[in-house]
């Protein structure tokens, strides 16, 4: 038998009737809001007609009569069953002297300005922290390099497996496809000049100098920087990083160095694979669309492309790898104890590392061009 709760008023006499439970909360709320806030001391309140009552209903009742009234329910309504009085008394006692938290007044314009300022300062802070962290990592590296017993070989090999070996197929496939696309573009544009043979040079140039390393680095930024941030961030949330510190271990030595070194080993290897499979993609298009046989393709490579293009491309890989790994780890350390924060910093680490990779690549391209390498 369900009976929606309501308040029956005769002069100064309130009778609480029916079920005061969560399903009727909205209706009861309306009824309470309609009433003027009156002095409960001047009225008598009859709770004997009250049927079902849960904590939601009890909370509403408390709004009506006040916490103090409920805390004194044993004197005020001794006719109620003991169990019900116990609930109301417990609730009243818990809510006496328990003001709601002071809400900050909203100031939209001010808040917007403050957020903008915070954001700008945050960007500056980020660079500052990154530089500091790079210094810390290099210092730790310099110290541990002299102590072979402190090299975390097992951990590094595990990271190498995840960041290097497991990324091989996707890097190879992607660069192969991009290589084919570049060859198609070259073939289309160069056909008008009757110099389609230079498609070979185009593909080789592009992949040796830029695309091999750039594509591999961007893939690792998306794939591994995010993984580092999420791993270290979850460890931070779970207080594992604090545990590492209190055990007298250095989180940089234990967690960051193996990741950074593994990354610096994997990216050059992945770059090399990327170059090869990009050129292979180009070669297949040349074979299919331009009737340049593989042997001819290789002969042109050997004749026209000096080794330094390969070296220029490969030299960038360790630098990119270092920055991607360091950014990923630093963002992980910056996570503060919530799931949302893990998400924010993972996003930030991917965006930052891709940005840094592309920016540095542009700077390096200028530099190498000016140097005539």
């Amino acid at each position: 038998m369900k009976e929606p709760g309501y308040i029956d008023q005769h002069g100064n006499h309130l009778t609480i009737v029916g079920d005061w439970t969560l399903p009727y909360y909205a209706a009861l709320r309306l009824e309470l809001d309609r009433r003027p806030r009156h002095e409960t001391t001047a009225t008598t309140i009859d709770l004997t007609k009250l049927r079902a009552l849960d904590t939601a209903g009890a909370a509403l009742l408390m709004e009506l009569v006040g916490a103090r009234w409920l805390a004194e329910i044993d004197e005020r309504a001794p006719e109620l069953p003991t169990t019900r009085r116990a609930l109301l008394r417990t609730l009243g006692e818990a809510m006496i002297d328990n003001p709601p938290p002071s809400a900050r007044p909203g100031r939209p314009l001010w808040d917007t300005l403050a957020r903008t300022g915070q954001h700008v300062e945050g960007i500056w802070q980020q660079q500052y922290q990154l530089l500091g962290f790079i210094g810390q990592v290099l210092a730790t590296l310099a110290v541990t390099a002299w102590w072979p017993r402190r090299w975390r070989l097992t951990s590094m090999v595990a990271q190498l497996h995840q960041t290097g070996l497991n990324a091989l197929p996707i890097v190879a496939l992607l660069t192969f496809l991009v290589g084919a696309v570049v060859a198609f573009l070259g073939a289309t544009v160069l056909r008008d000049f009757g110099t389609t043979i230079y498609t070979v040079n185009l593909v080789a140039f592009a992949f040796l100098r830029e695309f091999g390393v750039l594509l591999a680095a961007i893939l690792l930024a998306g794939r591994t920087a995010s993984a580092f941030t999420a791993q270290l961030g979850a460890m931070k949330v779970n207080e594992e990083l604090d545990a590492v510190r209190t055990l007298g271990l250095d989180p940089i030595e234990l967690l960051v160095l193996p990741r950074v070194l593994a990354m610096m080993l994997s990216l050059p290897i992945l770059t090399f694979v990327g170059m090869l499979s990009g050129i292979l993609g180009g070669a297949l298009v040349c074979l299919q669309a331009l009737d340049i046989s593989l042997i001819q393709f290789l002969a042109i490579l050997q004749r026209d492309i000096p080794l330094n293009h390969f070296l220029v491309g490969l030299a960038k890989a360790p630098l990119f790898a270092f920055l991607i790994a360091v950014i990923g780890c630093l963002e992980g350390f910056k996570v503060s104890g919530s799931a949302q924060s893990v998400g924010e910093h993972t996003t930030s680490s991917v965006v930052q590392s891709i940005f840094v990779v592309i920016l540095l690549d542009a700077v390096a391209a200028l530099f190498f061009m000016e140097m005539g390498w």
Partner: protein
Amino acid sequence: MSASREPLIRVRGLANRFGQHSVHENLDLDLYPGEILGVVGGSGTGKSVLLRSIVGLLRPSAGRIEVFGEDLPQLPARDRSRVERRFGVLFQRGALFTSLTLQENVALPLIEHAGLPRADAEALARVKLALAGLPGEVAILYPAELSGGMIKRAALARALALDPEVLFLDEPTAGLDPIGAAAFDRLILTLRDALGLSVFLVTHDLDTLYAACDRVAVLSRRRVRVADRLDIVAATDDEWIHDYFHGPRGRAAYRAAHPEESP
């Protein structure tokens, strides 16, 4: 007292296996309406796993779990959600949503299921937090800013949000100070008496067993060894049970609960 009534939750022949590792075999357990059932057992005997399989988070390898007379794992998703709303669960590690403040944590089910407007839900959430022993000013803090005991209290408030019929508590008093733990025991009793809750209470706290539980189920060797009134369980002829209830802590808790028998 309630043994003649129909059980609210009936577990029959439950088996839970993780690969080769068998946690439960042929486990039977009943939870009667309005009772507080204490579940004890050594660490790793599968108390949390039992709780998870009853609330439907873990599909058992074998056996039947009837809840309110329905076989929970077999129900279609809609009906299951309806049944699950009658549960309140306090997880061993709190499992608060870290991106929400405490009052938002408690208000979430009120907004989603009870359809309350946000302001009402948060006001009600603060009442529940206060009931669980948390003062008003912490309601706007995030879980990362709390102590372990406060997280337990907030998790209890969230478990109570929808005024559930069955409350599942996984080691609720672990991490609370003794005063807080005693207040917790009283709160559970008050709520049970006033609201007619049934409580499935996993605990290592002997004081809680003596103060609050109507029956105690002992998990051991993959089964419920015995489930009965505390004095009967304590007298059971089993080495682990004997050590548990008649070790130094067990005796101290017994004396605290029976002051008139102390020498």
